């Protein structure tokens, strides 16, 4: 049976889903209790999880849920916003078609024909959506929205140091939407502490995030029956099992990993062991015992104190280990093994064939290994010494019920996923259009306007430098920077401003000979004043490109030029860098750089709404205008729900009007919210929703079949090749 797949049906479905998810959205959102068929009870505010728990039957609903989960796999965030945004888009579309109905379908045609025609119209709209997504959206994102972006990094240098307070704000906002109301501060603080404790050095945080995201299940310990506030971070790794043998040891402990039983067996897979006599059996058993003992003795000689095994070891091995003072932990899961290997870089120990005398190579050190008791259950606590930038720590998550602990686990895992996404650059599709225009004209304008801003900063920066530094500078270095600059000018589109740079530096080179003589007595304060003077001609020379004035000044302030010259030595490298940044921006123009954030509370939505509207006004093509308008209006759905419960000055219309006013008058947006959210995540969400909407629009009918659709094999294509 075929059912018409229409916007109306999709809207109905989306509206039902919206009512469910909107109750959990934002800081005011509440919890949803899910029960599993097994009787387990689960608490959740996670949109993806809720949608899955509903077990929807409606085909369009199932498609939406599939779209949401594929989006979640990518970003780990935004399921609720997805549904709300989709619902608003469908609503807008529906409203438009209701209006246009008369004009489109005034002629009296048959129902079937009308249905097809309608589908054609949807197809048309979905085409428009595609063009919007590929062209307009990225253009708007880049040209207009870009200037509002904040960065999570405290400075934009290569090391990208993380700013703790902004990370806290980001995580605070994330957990606001994920965990119960009185726990989000605690959980986000916990996560923040955890992240900084695990990150040994500033630069390695990407590696840490990757590792934590991959192995999160092994890095957390859930404990039920204790208040949430008992959750804490523990240094080292906690394995959820007890020692098979525990021999206390002090100091650094040598460990080995084994992935097979140490005791040799009678026969291995695929082989046959033929027993001819009882004595043979006894001797082989004797040999096995002696061999096991020898291996354990060997391990003890090599000073190994802990044996980690992925398999269950026979009693004999455990006994021998105990005799030799070696602690044993058995039955490690493959995930735990891979985590330990990633942290320590330790390869499994291969049982030597002959009684070997050589040094044992595959060992690692741990700081401590001891039993750890949590809620009268025993765990193994290992102080692994890390060889990568991840310093191993575990999170102990407590909660009165399992459902709550699980919720916190899922939220923390999601947060790591979100951070991982945040620190990636996101490329936009905008390059094609931008490159041909921008390379010729716009970079220049862009740079010039930028330069005038940057210059005072740089001069200031040089003033802040200690005076002594500049004294050390000599002619050679200066010449070097000059050649750099020259080389640079070849690379970049030759601009007016660069030439002036060179012009500025040429006279200084000639004067450096006097620098040696005059450099004798120079106190700091007059130098500072002079620099301020020099600052002026510098800009003048930039704008007017007049070398005459520059030289005149040099003559009149001959002494001063030297200081300026000396300073230039320190100025230029900085400038050099800033120039590089400029150019790199003009080439990789269309990308959202890693770590871009915006304040929460619908800031992204309102901004995009504003710019899309203003774009739509400028646009000539009718469908572009229409699609932009639809999306712009639909974007407001999320902030509307966020501010639903707020009154007075913080109600949505008030916020909206204030934001629009600020944007029109070019003032900075003032947000009363303290959190931050990732721009890339929002952008990806938007594109995912548009994709989903296109899917919905292009389907004209749903056919119910009795069996699963057959999988299409690609054997044929191989033959053809």
């Amino acid at each position: 049976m075929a059912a018409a797949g229409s916007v109306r049906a999709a809207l109905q479905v989306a509206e039902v889903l919206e009512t469910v998810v909107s109750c959990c959205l934002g800081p005011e959102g509440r919890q949803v209790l899910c029960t599993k068929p097994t009787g387990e009870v689960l608490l959740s505010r996670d949109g993806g999880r809720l949608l899955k728990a509903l077990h929807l039957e409606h085909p369009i609903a199932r498609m939406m849920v599939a779209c949401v989960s594929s989006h979640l796999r990518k970003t780990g965030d935004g399921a609720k916003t997805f549904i709300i945004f989709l619902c608003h888009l469908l609503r807008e579309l529906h409203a438009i078609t209701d209006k246009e109905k008369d004009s489109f379908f005034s002629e009296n045609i048959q129902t079937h024909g009308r249905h097809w025609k309608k589908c054609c119209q949807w197809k048309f709209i979905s085409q428009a959506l595609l063009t919007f997504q590929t062209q307009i959206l990225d253009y708007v994102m880049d040209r207009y929205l870009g200037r509002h972006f904040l960065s999570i990094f405290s400075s934009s240098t290569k090391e990208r140091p993380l700013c703790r307070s902004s990370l806290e704000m980001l995580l605070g906002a994330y957990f606001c939407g994920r965990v119960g109301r009185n726990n989000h501060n605690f959980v986000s603080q916990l996560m923040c502490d955890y992240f900084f404790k695990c990150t040994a050095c500033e630069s390695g945080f990407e590696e840490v995030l990757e590792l934590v995201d991959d192995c999160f299940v092994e890095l957390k310990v859930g404990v039920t029956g204790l208040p949430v506030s008992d959750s804490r971070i523990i240094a080292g790794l906690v394995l959820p099992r007890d020692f098979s043998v525990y021999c206390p040891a002090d100091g650094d402990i040598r460990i080995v990993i084994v992935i097979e039983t140490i005791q040799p067996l009678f026969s291995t897979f695929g082989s046959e062991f033929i027993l001819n006599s009882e004595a043979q059996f006894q001797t082989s058993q004797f040999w096995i015992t002696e061999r096991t003992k020898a291996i354990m003795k060997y391990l003890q000689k090599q000073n190994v104190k802990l044996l980690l095994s992925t398999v269950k070891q026979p009693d004999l091995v455990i006994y021998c280990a105990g005799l030799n003072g070696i602690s044993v932990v058995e039955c490690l899961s493959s995930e735990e093994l891979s985590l330990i290997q990633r942290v320590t870089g330790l390869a499994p120990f291969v049982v030597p064939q002959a009684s070997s005398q050589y040094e044992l190579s595959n060992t690692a050190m741990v700081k401590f290994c001891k039993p750890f008791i949590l809620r009268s259950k025993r765990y193994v606590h290992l102080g692994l010494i890390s060889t990568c930038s991840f310093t191993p720590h575990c999170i102990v998550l407590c909660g009165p019920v399992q459902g709550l602990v699980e919720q916190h686990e899922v939220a923390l895992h999601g947060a790591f996923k979100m951070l991982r996404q945040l620190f990636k650059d996101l490329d936009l599709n905008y390059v094609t259009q931008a490159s041909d225009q921008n390379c010729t004209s716009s970079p220049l304008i862009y740079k010039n306007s930028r330069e005038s801003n940057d210059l005072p900063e740089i001069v200031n920066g040089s003033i802040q430098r200690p005076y002594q530094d500049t004294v050390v500078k000599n002619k050679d270095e200066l010449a070097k920077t000059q050649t750099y600059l020259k080389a640079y000018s070849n690379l970049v589109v030759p601009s007016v401003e660069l030439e002036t740079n060179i012009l500025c530096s040429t006279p200084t080179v000639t004067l450096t000979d006097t620098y040696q003589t005059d450099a004798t007595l120079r106190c700091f304060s007059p130098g500072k004043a002079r620099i301020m003077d020099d600052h002026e001609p510098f800009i003048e020379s930039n704008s007017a490109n007049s070398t005459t004035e520059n030289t005149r000044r040099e003559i009149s302030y001959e002494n001063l030029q030297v200081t300026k010259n000396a300073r230039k030595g320190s100025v230029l490298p900085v400038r050099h860098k800033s120039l590089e940044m400029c150019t790199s921006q003009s080439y990789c123009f269309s990308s959202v750089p890693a770590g871009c954030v915006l304040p929460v509370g619908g800031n992204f939505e309102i901004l995009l709404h504003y710019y899309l509207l203003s774009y739509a006004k400028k646009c000539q093509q009718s469908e572009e205008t229409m699609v932009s308008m639809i999306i712009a209006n639909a974007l407001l759905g999320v902030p509307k729900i966020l501010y639903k419960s707020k009154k007075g000055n913080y109600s949505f219309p008030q916020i909206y009007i204030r934001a629009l006013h600020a944007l029109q008058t070019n003032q900075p947006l003032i947000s009363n919210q303290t959190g931050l959210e990732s721009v890339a995540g929002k952008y990806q969400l938007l594109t995912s929703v548009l994709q989903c909407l296109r899917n919905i629009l292009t389907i004209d009918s749903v056919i119910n079949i009795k069996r699963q659709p057959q999988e299409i094999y690609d054997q044929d294509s191989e033959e053809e090749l």
Partner: protein
Amino acid sequence: MSRLEAKKPSFCRSEPLTSERVRATLSVLKGIVTSCYGPAGRLKQLHNGLGGSVCTTSQSAALLANLPVTHPILKILTTSVQNHVSCFSDGGLFTAILCCNLVENVQRIGLTPTTVIKLNKQLLNLCTSYLKSEACGCRIPVNFSSTQILLCLVRSILTSKPACMLTTKEVDHISTLILRAFLLIIPENAQDHIILGKSIIVPLKHQRVIDSTVLPGILIEISEVQLMKILPIKKSDSFKVALFCVSLSGDLSDTGEGNVVVSYGVSLENAVLDQLLNLGRQLASDHVDLVLCQKVIHPSLKQLLRTHHVIAVDRVGVAVMEPLSKVTGTRPIGSLDSISPSSYGSVKELCTAKFGFKHFFHLIPNETTVCSLLLCNRNDTAWDELKLTCQTALHALQLTIKEPCVLLGGGCTETHLAAYIRHKTRSEPEGILRDDGCTQTELQLIAEAFCSALESLAGSLEHDGGEILTDGKYGHFWSVQADSPSVVNWPDLLSRCGCGLYSSQEELSWSFLRSARLPFVPQTCLPCEATDSAGNLTLDCFTAKLSGLQVAVETANLILDLSYVIEDKN
């Protein structure tokens, strides 16, 4: 081919707490737990109509484990209580009742969940910081040089479980036993951190409670037939013990994944048996006196050991392996040939004993941190209840060692805490509100709900229609028998407060708990002499009660925060 099964769509309900059915089921649960609470609590009999054993109890651990709960909200509540009990053993009913009371009271107010949850959290913080502070008026530091307070704590736990069916004399007997068992597991020469031993509860049903006893060391139950085989034990100062964790039954060990081909006429059983007998000879030549095995010992080996005057006891089970190796100082042996002499241990004395109609093999170690508590009670269900109670009491004592203080019991902590919160929210509301965006009126409303939840929790200790009073000085709990003349001289009717700390000799301006009272400053800082002089106090475990309070408020917040329930009907 994969099997596909269509999933039924889930059932989704909004605002679950507003539904009448949920309220009704909540109040039924509340009725069940409230009626069980305290020494005068009523017992519940849980039975299956089809037959099987009947459980008579008033303890949350037994009650909630057997209570079939279907509604998800109740499930949250009961699992949270059960989790608390599995962590702390004590305070389960306290947590359940407080949680029910809070949910019920807050619903009546009708504020938005956001404000309620925020303020509840603030009030909880107020409570916990007060209870943890030195100035707390309902906390007694434990002096380990006398057993008085510890004994009171154990006795309070025993009396609060009426399903144990103990008389006053029996309560005294059992509480001294428990305390002795606890003292036995504390190592004598403790270093910087103490590792407690273990007390093993040995069941002895259908005996008089008075026959219960505590013995140092380990009791291993043996059948009468086994006992006959055991030779008379020779007198000695020390006995050498070998403890096997590997099976001595002569079965073949794991031969690997490949095939083992045995030629005709070769008997592996004989080969293994030979090995076992060799082992027996080695044990005998090492002068081992006692061989214990977790699994089965081959009869031939037993016979061999007997001829060498070695006592062999098998099938001791995995549960006692750890205490056994601890007591005897042996290393569990996992090898059949060549045993290292260092694996042997020793015990001071060996004897057989008969308690009731059971025979035991008694190992008395040199230095003991393991003891056996032989627990007797008249019938199965009362014994089960008594065993649970003993475990609770032992656990409470362990927790008290970690956090050396106890809370006043008998409802006094609750009423005192309520008085303190009332006073605090009136006198310095700004300090509690900070910048949460809540108004003072909202705080007053929630504080009233919170306090009355605490007070009605204390009030549920009274099951016989009596009246409950509180005083205007300490804020303690006083109960009056039912049918007492209405307006009388209170000191004549009252004797001591709930916890037994104060007597009615003082003029304390009593008033009914349910009536409206003016907030007052409850006296903080217990006077030292008060705690020393009072002989028979009712006390509660500090850690368990504090955590119970936190869990109750957190769970109530969780339940109040629910906006949807999605039930998977598959």
